[in-house]
């Protein structure tokens, strides 16, 4: 099965950040998220994680959430992929 995690994550970020079509395609592994984008505050990140759970059909435990996974697009993508593999 082809892994669509990357695509789904870009879509979720587009929805949360209100990005224009195609804008999320410019994100790379080092693109900064939490702590880098002023609009991405704790409430927005909480919403983002809930959307991730719903759309990727995963459960994210509180103790799995750390600064590193939220800091960059690459970190969040790796985390989401690992969760989906384990699910």
């Amino acid at each position, binding site marked *: 099965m082809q892994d669509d995690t990357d695509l789904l994550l870009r879509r979720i970020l587009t929805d*949360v950040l209100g990005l224009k079509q195609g804008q999320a395609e410019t994100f790379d592994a080092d693109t900064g998220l939490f702590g880098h984008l002023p609009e991405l505050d*704790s409430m927005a990140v909480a919403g983002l994680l809930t959307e991730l759970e719903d759309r990727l059909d995963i459960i994210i435990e*509180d103790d799995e959430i750390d600064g590193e996974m939220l800091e960059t697009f690459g970190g969040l993508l790796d985390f989401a992929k690992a969760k989906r593999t384990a699910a």
Partner: protein
Amino acid sequence: MTPATWLCPLPDGGSQEEQALAFDSGRACRLLIVPALFDEGNRLRRFTVEVMRRLDRAGMDSVLPDLPGTNESLSGLPGQDARHWQDAMGAAAQHFRATHALGLRGGCLFTPPLPAFHYAPVKGAQILRGMLRARMLASREAGLEENREALTAAAREDGLVLAGYPLGSALFRDLERLEPATGASVIAQDRIGGSGLWLRAEPDEDAAQADALAALLVEAMQP
């Protein structure tokens, strides 16, 4: 669109004036809108008013009351509970002679007993889950570790400030178990197109989505 007031009954038998936004031209179709809760309410307010403008143009009245303790209300949020919010929305519906009700997201938990629409309804527990997560994230940023169990226990006992909202213990415990009533006509986001504006980090609007929701409501409310 004009600001309006209505008298909200208080648990002690008194009453308190509360605010609302209203398109009221005394028309036959009259929609009471229960706003989305807390942070989602802020993010959806612009969208909500855009839907009301469209209903007005289509010949329908609508009113958006404040839940006591939120927005312009002079009541405190910590003293609120679900029963009071349900009674308040019932009183607003009566005051404005509403013929239909629309709940938005968490507002679906408090739609009065009228023919009702639920837009993207959520359970109270889902709202609290997101707010607790936001609190833990913010605390962690500040170098403070908190866990969900301890926060939940504290909230049930003494109330808790979540995402800037001081929730009393009664409202917190009520939200933990509240689910939208069955029997309402559910409007899921996929019928509106695009993604829900409550997800946006910043409040936003979307004319196409407002058009779509207003059209669905007009179609369903037409006599």
